[in-house]
């Protein structure tokens, strides 16, 4: 119970720190997603005239980019912030007894809140453009949960190792850059050469992002089998990350 309130307080503080001193404060965390959404829809869809192959809808490309980028931002944000979180919060860790994983939980929670705000506006947009609502959209929270679990496991491992080797953080930043361009988010899968296409299913981000795209853009079922495999892999990663933290926690605390 007390741990939950600790995580909540840290998350709240994270938001208020981000906008501390600004007049509009929390309103900024509503404005930024709207602006992003407008950019995706207008710039990518209308002005740059992006069309998805086989789709005549002018917003189709905008929707495609949105359902790729919004989850991706949460994913990347969680991992890159997590990889530095122990060092960032060392003054807390070295003074009060605080369970190390709860720091990652709050990072993920903060990203999840941003995600939910963005998705909220996105659904409003879908409603006004008379987009077809599909039963599969009920899966979105679970997809997001799975993606953040993966980010959690990955972030936890990165956070633990970064304490010993600062370079990990930079390596992660670089990896995430490559990862972004290796995942069909702003482009469509078909433009990739066959060799790359064949290894794409092994990209966890692809499995997730493609599911969103199928649900929102193409109106088809996600690949359930791939999602189950991904769930199992994610939990193996979680298991391994947590085990690593356990093994190294004493050293992590000593070094901070």
């Amino acid at each position, binding site marked *: 119970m007390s741990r939950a309130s600790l995580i909540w307080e840290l998350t709240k503080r994270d938001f208020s720190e981000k906008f501390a001193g600004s007049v509009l404060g929390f309103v900024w965390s509503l404005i930024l997603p709207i602006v992003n959404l407008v950019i995706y829809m207008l710039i990518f869809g209308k002005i740059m005239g992006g069309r998805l192959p086989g789709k005549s809808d002018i917003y189709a490309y905008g929707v495609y980019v949105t359902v790729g980028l919004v989850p991706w931002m949460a994913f990347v944000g969680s991992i890159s912030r997590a990889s530095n979180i122990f060092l960032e919060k060392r003054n807390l860790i070295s003074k009060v007894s605080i369970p190390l*994983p709860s720091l990652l939980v709050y990072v993920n929670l903060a990203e999840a809140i941003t995600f939910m705000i963005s998705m909220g506006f996105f659904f409003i947009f879908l409603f006004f453009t008379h987009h077809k609502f599909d*039963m*599969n959209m*009920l*899966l979105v929270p*679970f997809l997001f*949960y*799975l993606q953040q*679990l993966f980010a959690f496991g990955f972030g936890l491992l990165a956070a633990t190792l970064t304490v010993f080797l600062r370079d990990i953080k930079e390596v992660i930043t670089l990896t995430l850059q490559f990862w972004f361009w290796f995942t069909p988010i702003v482009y469509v899968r078909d433009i990739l050469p066959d060799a790359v296409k064949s290894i794409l299913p092994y990209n966890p981000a692809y499995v997730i992002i493609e599911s969103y795209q199928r649900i929102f853009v193409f109106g088809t*079922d996600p690949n*359930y089998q791939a*999602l*189950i495999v991904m*769930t*199992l892999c*994610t*939990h193996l990663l*979680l*298991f391994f990350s*947590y085990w690593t933290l356990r093994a190294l926690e004493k050293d992590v605390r000593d070094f901070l």
Partner: protein
Amino acid sequence: MLLAALLAWTLLFAAVVALFMKRGYGRMRVYWLIFFNAVFLCGVFWFFPLLKGFHQIQP
């Protein structure tokens, strides 16, 4: 119907976790939680298409 099933499954999972947290189980607790979580999510992705198919056949 689908929504109700998802909600029920989620609530069941939450209840199990809550009960588990209350009972303790010490240092192995987190590993158990990871296991429950995996069952929960696999369940969602496994039963969702089945339930949906069932739902669509219904008039």
